[in-house]
């Protein structure tokens, strides 16, 4: 996308008005019931003015139950040659169970789309040299993204996938025919790119294995985070800051085995002034985390929705420079940039509130968040240890 082309996709009043913020939305049925993306598309479209048409995307979990044991790769190709090379590579490294083009339909507003293909893959054990399956898949994704031209892996997890591209999220949903899919957890993103190009690979969600991240904000620690992650074999290729978060959670949660609550304290660590008021035991924990994982602190304003199989996590920076509202209706958890988007699809919430900065909101399969009585809004925080 060239700058001079920006006017073409600006608002329909053609007055160059931009309201500058991304929109994020997440919806999870913690009972595991799969539902269509209709309310998700409706909700993200309601925040249309937050984005500018330079990126939209969705992650869906519980998507491919008939292929639940295989890695579902969605790969974007910029050329047929790129595709041929990658498919050759895939056949060497995996058993290819199925390969098809992802169905699309012509959609006004979606211009010059790349090819997007879907593969169901099984790791060739004889190729993996004793590596864990997860590590093997991560390495192969990195190999495709860094060494093979004109091809980028959009998603690489089991029973889930990412659909994304350049356009408003509701256009991307139409383009990829998302009305035909069901899942128990959906996240959606409308993009307003700030410092980096609006291209298909730069749309959110970002993914590795079954981790996805959507983000509103700006990660100014991107350089530090990226260099740290390179030591562990993660290479950033999507030209935008949010990509690091996907790799950070894969590293910390899958490989280092840390619980979400601790990861939140690494990404959005408490202030030193707060740590000083904590008990000696907690002080030790927080100081240790900052010493060991200081390079993974996310600096700058952010709200992220992180998801993986069975879990959806909302988190903001510690002084909440980007918005996040939580809604609960029976077994369904909603996370959104704006409450109005939640109310549009679920007017009669049991509870809606605005969590404290740096405090993760976690929805897990089989564990509905319990609505508290008479609580329209609440400030959840224990600031004195």
């Amino acid at each position, binding site marked *: 996308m060239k700058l001079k082309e920006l006017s073409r996709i600006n608002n329909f009043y053609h007055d160059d008005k931009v*309201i500058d913020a991304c929109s994020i939305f997440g919806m999870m049925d913690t009972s595991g019931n799969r539902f269509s993306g209709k309310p998700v598309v409706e909700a993200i479209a309601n925040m249309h003015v937050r984005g500018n048409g330079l990126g939209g995307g969705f992650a869906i979990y519980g998507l491919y139950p008939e292929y639940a044991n295989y890695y579902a790769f969605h790969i974007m190709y910029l050329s047929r040659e790129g595709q041929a090379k990658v498919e050759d590579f895939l056949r060497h490294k995996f058993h290819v169970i199925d390969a098809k083009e992802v169905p699309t339909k012509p959609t006004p507003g979606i211009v010059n789309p790349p090819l997007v293909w879907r593969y169901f893959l099984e790791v060739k054990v004889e190729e993996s040299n004793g590596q864990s399956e997860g590590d093997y898949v991560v390495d192969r994704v990195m190999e495709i993204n860094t060494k093979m031209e004109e091809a980028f892996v959009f998603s690489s997890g089991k029973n889930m996938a990412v659909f994304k591209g350049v356009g408003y999220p509701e256009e991307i949903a139409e383009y990829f025919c998302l009305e035909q899919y069901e899942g128990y957890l959906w996240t959606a993103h409308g993009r307003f790119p700030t410092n980096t190009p609006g291209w298909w690979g730069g749309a959110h969600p970002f993914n590795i294995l079954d981790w996805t991240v959507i983000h509103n904000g700006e990660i100014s620690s991107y350089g530090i985070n990226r260099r740290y992650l390179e030591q562990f074999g993660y290479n950033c290729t999507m030209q935008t800051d949010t990509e690091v978060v996907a790799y950070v959670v894969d590293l910390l949660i899958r490989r280092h085995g840390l619980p979400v609550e601790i990861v939140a304290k690494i990404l959005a660590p408490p202030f030193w002034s707060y740590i000083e008021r904590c008990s000696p035991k907690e002080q030790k924990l927080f100081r240790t985390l900052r010493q060991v994982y200081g390079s993974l602190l996310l600096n700058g304003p952010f709200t992220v929705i992180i998801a993986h199989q069975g879990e959806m996590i909302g988190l903001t920076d510690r*002084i909440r420079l980007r918005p996040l509202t939580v809604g609960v209706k029976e077994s369904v958890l909603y996370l959104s940039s*704006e*409450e109005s988007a939640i*109310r549009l699809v679920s007017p009669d919430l049991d509870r809606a509130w*605005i969590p404290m900065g740096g405090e993760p909101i976690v929805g897990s399969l089989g564990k509905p968040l319990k609505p508290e009585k008479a609580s329209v809004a*609440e400030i959840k925080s224990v600031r004195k240890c």
Partner: protein
Amino acid sequence: MKEAVTIDAKGIFYRELNAKLRKVVSNGTQKIELRNVYGQRYIGTDLDKPVEIEIFGTPGNDLGAFMDGPRIIVHGNAQDGCGNTMNNGEIIIHGHAGDILGLSARGGKIFVREDVGYRAGIHMKEYQDKKPMVVIGGTAQDFLGEYMAGGILILLGLKLKEGESHKANFIGTGMHGGAIYIRGDVEEFQLGKEVSAAELDENDHSVLKKLVGEFAYHFGYDAGEILKHKFTKLFPLYLRPYGRLYAY
């Protein structure tokens, strides 16, 4: 006087809705009901007549921005930036409000029944008889009254239990004008470096009596009960806290 007008806002883009409001108000309508509001921004902006706008639903960001006179009543919650740079009028929210409530307000009143998010009252200012006033029934998140340059901010903490204190940190950081009144306890460490706590004098009590009285009237509380409780006044220590920060 024209009859009350009801507008179903469902599916209407914010610009069209606000254009419609301008038109209706210019016709002399004094009461408007907005139904099915889902996130339309800037509702009430640019209006300078004493019209009453009742909103059913969830109005979008910057509700009442630059407003100059109307009264807005929200039956629901407000999002971020409510009362942005408003000049005159009233916003009454029967629910909670998001971040930066009343930012840069230069006049008018805002009443919120429940809690508010981060940075409520940020950079409110006053000049002569123009003085923004904000009353919050619940509690607030961090940076309450940040960079406040004028006006009155009252935090009532009505839902706090006995012995429970407000949780906000960095209250009044960078504050250099106006006053914050807090009902219920705050610890020294919760305050920004630029404010100090004081006992209330007679003038403070009369300010509280008036504004808490209005709050109680809007939401059906007993003002006398609320006022029985101890209040703390926060005032700015310096007129220009960062005067030397960028000067060399």
